[in-house]
C-alpha cells in the first residue's frame, strides 16, 4: 500500500493529540485546576510554557488534561451517535415500509431540533455533567449517521449476495448481521472520523453559549470560550486551545479522507 500523505499527516496529528492526552493521565507540569491569583494572565515563560489563565492556572497543564476530556467526550459522543444512528438506519433501511417511515419522521424531527435546545434540555435533566453533553450531541448527530447507514443498507440490500443469503435459508436477522452490517463499517468509519471533529467543534460552540462541559474541568472548548474576553491581553490563552482544536479537526478530516480511499478500493463491485 502506498503511503498516503493524508494518512501520514492525519495520523500524526491525531496521534499527537492522543499522546498529549495519554501523557496528561500520568503527568502534567502543574496542577491543572490549582488557581493562583498572583499569577493571572502571565505570558509564556520558562515555568509556564504557555502562560497562565485568568485564574492563574497553568495553560499547558489545562491543555493536556483538556485533551483527555475533549477526546473522551468526543469519542463517547461518537459512540452514542453511531449506536443510535446504526439502530435507526439499519432498521429503517432493512425493514423499510412503515418502520422506515416512522423512523424517518423521528429522524427528521431530531434533525430539525436545534442542538442547543437538546443540549440544554438534557443538561438540565441529567445535571451538569459531560454525559449530558455526550447524550445531547450524540442525539444531535445520530440522524446523520442514520442517513448514511440507511443509504448504505438500501444499496447493499439490493446486492445479489444478500439475496443469495436468503436463498441459503438464512433468517433475515442473520442476513442483516452477517451480510449487511459489515458493509456499513466503511462509510460509518469515515463518518466517525468527521464526527469526532464536529463534536469537538460543537462542544466549544456550546461552551460559547454557556452550555458546554461544565468547568472547572478543562476542555478545549471551554478554555477557548473563557479565553475570548482576553483575546487582546493574553492571545496565547485562545491560540493554544484553538490550535489544538484545529489540529484535532484537521487530523480527523485527513484521516477520514485517507480511510475513505483505503476502505473504498473500488474492487469493481
Amino acid at each position: 500500500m502506498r503511503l498516503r500523505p493524508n494518512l501520514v499527516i492525519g495520523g500524526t496529528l491525531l496521534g499527537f493529540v492522543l499522546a498529549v492526552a495519554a501523557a496528561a493521565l500520568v503527568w502534567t507540569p502543574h496542577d491543572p485546576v490549582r488557581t493562583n491569583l498572583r499569577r493571572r494572565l502571565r505570558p509564556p515563560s520558562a515555568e509556564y510554557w504557555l502562560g497562565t489563565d485568568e485564574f492563574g492556572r497553568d495553560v499547558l497543564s489545562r491543555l493536556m488534561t483538556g485533551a483527555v476530556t475533549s477526546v473522551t467526550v468526543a469519542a463517547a459522543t461518537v459512540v452514542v451517535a453511531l449506536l443510535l444512528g446504526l439502530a435507526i438506519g439499519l432498521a429503517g433501511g432493512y425493514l423499510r415500509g412503515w418502520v422506515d417511515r416512522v423512523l424517518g419522521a423521528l429522524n427528521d424531527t431530531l434533525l430539525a431540533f436545534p442542538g442547543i435546545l437538546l443540549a440544554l434540555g438534557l443538561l438540565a435533566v441529567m445535571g451538569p455533567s459531560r454525559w449530558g453533553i455526550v447524550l445531547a450531541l450524540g442525539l444531535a448527530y445520530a440522524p446523520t449517521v442514520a442517513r448514511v447507514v440507511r443509504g448504505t443498507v438500501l444499496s447493499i440490500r439490493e446486492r445479489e449476495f444478500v439475496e443469495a443469503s436468503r436463498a441459503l435459508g438464512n433468517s433475515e436477522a442473520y442476513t442483516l448481521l452477517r451480510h449487511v452490517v459489515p458493509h456499513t463499517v466503511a462509510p460509518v468509519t469515515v463518518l466517525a472520523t468527521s464526527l469526532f471533529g464536529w463534536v469537538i467543534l460543537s462542544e466549544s460552540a456550546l461552551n460559547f453559549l454557556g452550555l458546554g462541559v461544565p468547568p472547572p474541568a478543562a476542555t478545549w472548548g471551554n478554555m477557548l470560550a473563557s479565553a475570548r474576553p482576553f483575546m487582546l491581553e493574553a492571545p496565547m490563552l485562545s491560540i493554544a486551545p484553538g490550535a489544538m482544536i484545529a489540529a484535532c479537526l484537521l487530523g480527523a478530516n485527513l484521516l477520514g479522507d485517507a480511510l475513505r480511499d483505503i476502505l473504498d478500493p473500488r474492487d469493481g463491485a
Partner: protein
Amino acid sequence: MRFRALLAAFAAASSVALAVPAAAQDTLRIRLNADIRSTDPGVNRDANTDGIVWHVVEGLVALRADASVGPMLAERVEVSEDGRAYTFALRPGVRFHNGQPLTSADVAFAMQRYMRRETNWRCRGDLDSSVTRITAVETPDERTVVIRLEQPSALFLTMLARPDCGQAGIWHRDSLNPDGSWRAPVGTGPFRLGEWRRGQFVELTRFENYAALPGAPDGLAGNKTPMVERVRFTIIPDDAAARAALLAGNIDILPDARSRDLPELRQRPGISIHSAASMDLQVLLMQTRDPLLQDVRMRRAIALALDVPELVRAVSEGTSRPSRAPIPVGSTFFTPAMAEVPPRDVAQARRLAAEAGYRGQRLRIVTTRRYEAFYEIAVLVQDMLRDAGIESDLEVLEWATQLDRYTRGDYQMMAFGFSARLDPSLSYEMFTGPKATQPRKAWDNPEVQAMLEQTMRETDAIRRRATFEAMHRRLLEEVPMVALYSSVTHGVTPRHVQGYGSWAVDAPRAWGVRIQR
C-alpha cells in the same frame, strides 16, 4: 485663588453654553446588555427595564445617590403624628409628555392601578402586607395627595422610590388603551419614549418642556435636564462585543464594563472610567438543613478557610471593598463594627471541620457562568477550601436552573448575588425567614426574625442601627451565609462624553450628559 475658581466656573459655563446647540443635534448611544421587558413601570420589568423607564416616568419621591429618599413630583411630604398619613404636595408647573398638567387625580389614578391585583405590580405585595398596608389614597385638592397606612412604616417612602417598583411612577391615563391595558408611558420624565425596536434598540427623545428641579443631578433625584436630543440604548448582549463597540466608536457609553477589562481600558488614552459602589451583595450561601452543614462548626470552618480580602480583590480587580456585612458599605446604617473582616485561619478551620465530623466528604458548590462573578467566587472558594482540607466540586448550572435551585433551597453551597436593597431591613429580609414556608431563605432563626420585624416598624434610626449591629454579630456566629462584597459599577466613556457618572444602581442615566466633539 477665588478669582481663578470663578474663572474656571465661567469657562465651564461658557463651554456648556457653546456645547448645548451642538449636543442637541446628537444622539447619545448607550450599551444595553439585553432587551427590556416592557415599558410598564414596575410591572413586567428587570434592571434594564427600570433603567429605561426612569428616563420616562417619575414618582412622587425619588432615590438620591446616597440611597436616601428625596422629593420629585412632590415638592414636600408631611407625615402625620401617628405615622399613618402621608401628605404629598405636588410641584407646580409639571407637565406630562402630552402637554397635560400633573394633578392629584393623575396620582390617584396611577396608584389605584398599581394596587389592583391583576396589574401584577411588583411591589403591591409590599404595600398590602401585615407590615405596610395602604388603606386609602385621597385627593383633597388638585395639588394634594394623602396616602393612609394601616400602621406606621419605616419603609413606605423607600418603597415608593424603589427603581424596581418603577418608582411608583405617575403617568397620564393616555398611557393605557381603552380596555385598560398598558400601551406606552406618557410620563413627566426628561425623555419621551421613541422607537423600541425589539432585540435591537430602545430610543428616547428629549422632552423639551421638562420641568427640571434646580441644582445638580443626585441619583434619580435632583436636576435631570436632558442635554441631548436623542438617546439610543443599543442592545449588545456580548461583553466582548460591547467593549469592542465602545473602542470602535459605535457606542458612547459602556455603563457596565467588567472589572476584568479595567486594566486594559485604563491604559487607553481618552477613555474615562466612572466607578461607583453598587448596593447589591455577593454571597456564599450555605444550606443549614444539610446533614453536614447543619453543624455550625462546619459552617464556621468554611468561613474561616476563606481569605475574603484576597478573594474579593481577585474577583473585582481590586475595585470592591471586602465586607462581611449584608448592609452595603455606603449605607448610613453601615457601622464601624460591620467594617471588620475576620481574618483567615486555616488551622482553626481544619480543627472545627474535624470536630464537626468532616471526613473528606466532597461538598458541592452551585454556581453559574451567567454572572462571571458567581463563577469566579465559586472557583476561588473551591480552591481556598482545599487549603483547609475541605474538598468540593463545582456544579455549574445555567442561570434559570440555579435560580430554581435557590428558590427551593436545593443546594449545599451556592455562589449567589442579591440585587440592591435600599433599606437595611430589606437587606436582612432578603435572606432571613422561615424555611418551611420560604425555602429560599438562608437564615431560619425565629429570634432573628422577630428582631427583623421590629426594625421594619421602628422609625428611630439610632435604635434601628443598634438592632442591625446585634443581627450582624449573630450572622457572623451562625454563618448561614458568607457575605463577601458589593460590586462596583464601572461606566466607561470616551473623551467626547461629558457629565456621565456611575452610581449605586447599575443602570445608566442619560440626563445631564453632553456630547462635545
